[in-house]
């Protein structure tokens, strides 16, 4: 530093030399430089590392100052080095040039007006130049880098977009489901081949159409509400079942899913419909539903569908609306079916249902609800006239014989008709009433219609109440026995008594077997009841006071169901044993059909065992069944009871019907040939009694002789006039 002042004034470039690193204040300068740089920019260098850099640069600077010939290029290198070290902040350059101006000469030991002064300025400029050039180069390079990166990213994004687009295209084109794209105004923009095929319009047709053109009259109202909500952006998607018309006018069933596509601003932009053809599935469902609701033989609706429709009709909200119901049962169908075979029976049912169906009014429903049972539902019904006209047509429809496989089959139908206000009754009640009315029509002679009469039916309806009260009736002691005498025609003496069951019903009064015995058979109640009858009648027969004549019979009816009961013989034996009644004073009345028509041997075996015990067997109602005389011979039978029908012709005063006379005579003769006694039932007049006596009939019973009566009354009468041959009651 000693020559600094001398050089400042007198020295020139020729005398100058660069100071050695130890000769000038390089560390001081470098530290100051590092201090001003630190914080100007983001650099990876820590403070100590910056100082290493500025020391190097300071040496470079010092050397340049004294370089001969002087060039400022070192300044450019320094500027470059600063940028390289990432001192790219704007202050890095200004602080550096300021430092050069302020501190370089003093640190070199020169005065501010040294001849070196211009060199400092030159170097300042060079540093700025080098720095700026380097920064510009860096900026351009980095801009280029980031632009390339952006382009590359964009290319990749576009490639991915194209790939995704291609994937979507493939999905769209090859999808098995129909896909359509539309805008929010409903204009169809694109459809895939599956949709073209599904609906049958060419693609161009679709693009001319609006979504609203695909309205189907069966569309649920919600579908189009949902659609509106969707295109207005209130919902993102909806699913529904919808029908579409195809180009050829046919309709298909579809599962439709419509989704909303929004733009980047969130506003509704497009809609995408995905449409799956489910027509086949629907057909299958329809078929299954049809099968579940129709009778496979006749194709008519079945009981299930009838009940649905009846329930709906009764619930219909139609003030004053009436519902009519006709229950039809084919008379004697079973005979045809049994004799000509099921095939003919089936064809007959088909023919009958065709004929019946042809007579229906508009809106009427006919259903097959059982083997030979049909029902016609008339809803709404306009009243009795309409139903009368309908039943007449139905009856007439079967008037002409039906030709099947060479047979001309005649059959009639019985109809029970009920009418009720909708909402006024339940399906169960209505069906019950119709069924009762049908039974009435049958009872009145078949081949006719009976109209439900609510008043008269007060007791008919009871069939169902009876069914409900029957099981407990025995325990409640509601059953009693009445007895009707059997009288020997020859001498008017008592032959025996027939025990007849009576039900003292708490609600309906005294009921006779014809009112409940079928029910008892159906429900099985006949078995305990029958057992009670055996026990009770035997007990009473032996305890009457005065007792019955020792040779008189107790005759008890046995139902078919009882004959099939393995416990029958045991029940009878026990009744006899308990009462002490001799077996040969007990007579069991069975119908010939129960004995002969049964396939099982059980009844016959039981009858044989009873006969072996000494019990008498009588065939009841002989002549109403098959009356198989040959078979009769092999049966252990002791007596025939002629059905009341044979006596009709013998009833009237004056000349009896000669045919009836001969028939009865022949029957009596055959019975006697077979060593059977003959009893005539339902004898109501003295004429009948006289003629039967003339024809050789052994015994008789009926109102002419005595009505059935309670044991005490019967016993009392018998005692007062035991040999009386004239009617007792």
């Amino acid at each position, binding site marked *: 530093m000693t020559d600094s002042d001398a050089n400042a004034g007198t020295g020139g470039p020729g005398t100058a030399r660069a100071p050695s690193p130890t000769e000038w204040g390089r560390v001081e300068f470098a530290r100051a430089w590092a201090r001003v740089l630190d*914080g100007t*920019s983001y650099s990876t260098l820590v403070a100590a590392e910056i100082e290493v850099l500025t020391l190097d640069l300071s040496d470079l600077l010092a050397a340049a100052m004294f370089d001969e010939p002087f060039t400022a290029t070192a300044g450019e290198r320094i500027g470059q080095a600063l940028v390289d070290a990432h001192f790219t902040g704007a202050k890095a350059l200004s602080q550096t040039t300021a430092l050069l101006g302020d501190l370089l000469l003093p640190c070199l030991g020169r005065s501010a007006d040294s001849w070196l002064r211009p060199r400092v300025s030159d170097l300042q400029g060079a540093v700025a130049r080098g720095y700026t050039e380097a920064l510009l180069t*860096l900026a351009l390079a980095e801009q280029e*880098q980031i632009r390339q990166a952006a382009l590359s*990213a964009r290319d990749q994004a576009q490639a991915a*977009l194209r790939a995704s687009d291609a994937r979507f295209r493939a999905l769209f084109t090859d999808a098995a489901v129909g896909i359509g794209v539309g805008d929010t105004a409903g204009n169809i923009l694109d459809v895939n081949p599956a949709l073209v095929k599904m609906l049958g319009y060419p693609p161009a047709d679709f693009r001319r159409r609006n979504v609203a053109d695909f309205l189907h009259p069966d569309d649920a109202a919600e579908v189009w509400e949902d659609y509106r909500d969707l295109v207005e952006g209130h919902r993102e998607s909806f699913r529904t079942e919808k029908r579409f018309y195809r180009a050829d006018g046919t309709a298909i069933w579809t599962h439709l899913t419509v989704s909303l596509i929004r733009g980047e601003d969130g506003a509704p932009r497009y809609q995408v419909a995905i449409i799956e053809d489910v027509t086949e599935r629907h057909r299958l469902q329809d078929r299954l539903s049809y099968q579940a609701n129709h009778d496979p033989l006749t194709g008519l609706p079945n009981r299930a569908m009838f009940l649905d429709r009846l329930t709906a009709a009764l619930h219909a909200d139609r003030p004053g609306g009436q519902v009519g119901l006709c229950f039809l049962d084919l008379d004697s169908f079973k005979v045809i079916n049994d004799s000509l075979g099921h095939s003919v029976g089936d064809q007959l049912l088909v023919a009958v249902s065709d004929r019946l169906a042809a007579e229906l009014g508009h809106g009427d429903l006919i259903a097959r609800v059982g083997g030979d049972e049909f029902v016609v539902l008339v809803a709404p019904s306009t009243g009795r006239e309409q139903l009368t006209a309908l039943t007449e047509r139905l009856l007439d429809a079967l008037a002409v014989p039906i030709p099947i496989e060479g047979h001309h089959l005649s059959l009639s139908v019985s109809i029970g008709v009920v009418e009720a206000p909708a909402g006024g009754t339940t399906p169960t009640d209505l069906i019950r009433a119709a069924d009762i009315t049908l039974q009435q029509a049958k009872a009145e002679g078949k081949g006719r219609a009976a109209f439900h009469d609510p008043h008269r039916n007060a007791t008919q309806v009871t069939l169902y109440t009876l069914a409900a009260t029957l099981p407990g009736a025995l325990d409640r002691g509601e059953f009693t026995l009445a007895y009707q005498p059997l009288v020997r025609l020859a001498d008017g003496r008592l032959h025996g008594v027939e025990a007849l069951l009576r039900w003292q019903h708490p609600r309906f009064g005294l009921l006779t077997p014809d009112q409940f015995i079928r029910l008892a058979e159906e429900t099985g109640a006949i078995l305990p009841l029958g057992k009670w009858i055996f026990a009770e009648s035997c007990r009473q027969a032996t305890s009457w006071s005065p007792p019955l004549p020792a040779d008189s019979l107790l005759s008890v009816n046995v139902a078919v169901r009882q004959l099939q009961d393995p416990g029958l013989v045991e029940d009878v034996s026990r009744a006899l044993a308990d009462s002490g009644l001799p077996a040969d004073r007990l007579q069991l009345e069975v119908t010939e059909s129960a004995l002969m028509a049964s396939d099982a041997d059980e009844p016959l075996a039981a009858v044989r065992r009873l006969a072996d015990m000494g019990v008498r067997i009588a065939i009841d109602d002989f002549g109403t069944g098959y009356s198989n005389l040959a078979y009769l011979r092999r049966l252990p039978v002791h007596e025939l009871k002629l059905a009341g029908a044979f006596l009709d012709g013998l009833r009237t005063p004056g000349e009896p019907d000669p045919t009836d006379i001969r028939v009865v005579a022949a029957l009596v003769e055959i019975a006697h040939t077979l060593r059977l006694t003959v009893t005539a039932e339902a004898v109501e007049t003295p004429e009948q009694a006289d003629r039967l006596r003339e024809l050789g009939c052994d015994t008789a019973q009926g109102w002419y002789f005595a009505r059935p009566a309670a044991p005490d009354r019967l016993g009392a009468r018998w005692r007062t006039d035991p040999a009386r041959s004239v009617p007792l009651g």
Partner: protein
Amino acid sequence: MGRPDWAPAGIDLDRPSAARVYDFYLGGFHNFAADREMGRRAIEMWPELPEIMKANRAFLRRAVRHLVAAGVRQFLDIGSGIPTVGNVHEVARAAAPDARVVYVDNDPVAVEHSRAILTGSEQTAVVQADLRDPDSVLRDPAAKALLDLRQPVAVLMVAVLHFVSDEDDPHGLVRRYRDAAPAGSYLAVSHASSEGQPALTESHRGLYRRTATPMTMRTGAQIAAFFDGYELVEPGLVYLPLWRPDPGTEVDERPERFSGFAGVGRKP
């Protein structure tokens, strides 16, 4: 996250990107007009921002050096952005030439840039993935090829978790990464916080709503919770400049100005 992964995102250079704005703060030129515009507005509002970013970057550097010294040779830098000056692999490999680094970012431009500058470097890989989908990060073929998850890994989440909103369950996500790494692994986190400069951070947050990555400022306690299952190394969770400052540097006398916390944890 609702977009299927085969449907690409568009590249919109008119929208500022957090990675490029960060580069701008650091004095880089890897940015576009929209980025610079946003950066300038942010600096106008908050003049210290560049300094904060530098402090954050400096923390990253110090953390990596510390981790290398602790023996870590595998780094997973999630939210790496545009790693220009002083990026992880340079810092790490300066001390340990065998260090391996996987960079992860969801910004496609940042990823492309990283790929460009890392071309030819076999010890680095770049993965475009979203940290909110740890499977896509951890099961990426390039990441799996480079990182051995049976050996300790340092997961770096530097200035990135504040771009994950609470509804994406950032703590749960960090746990997923923790569970994927073996004992002896590390987690380094720096995170913007509203503590210290509440008014400024709020307006800053408002600015970032325009980007694809809105910010969620968190409290020190919330940030500390990211280290559940880790043991914080000294000095714990502190303001950015206070984490193991370089010897010889003067530490700012008001470190809370930096408005961000930093910490490094070790999985025991």
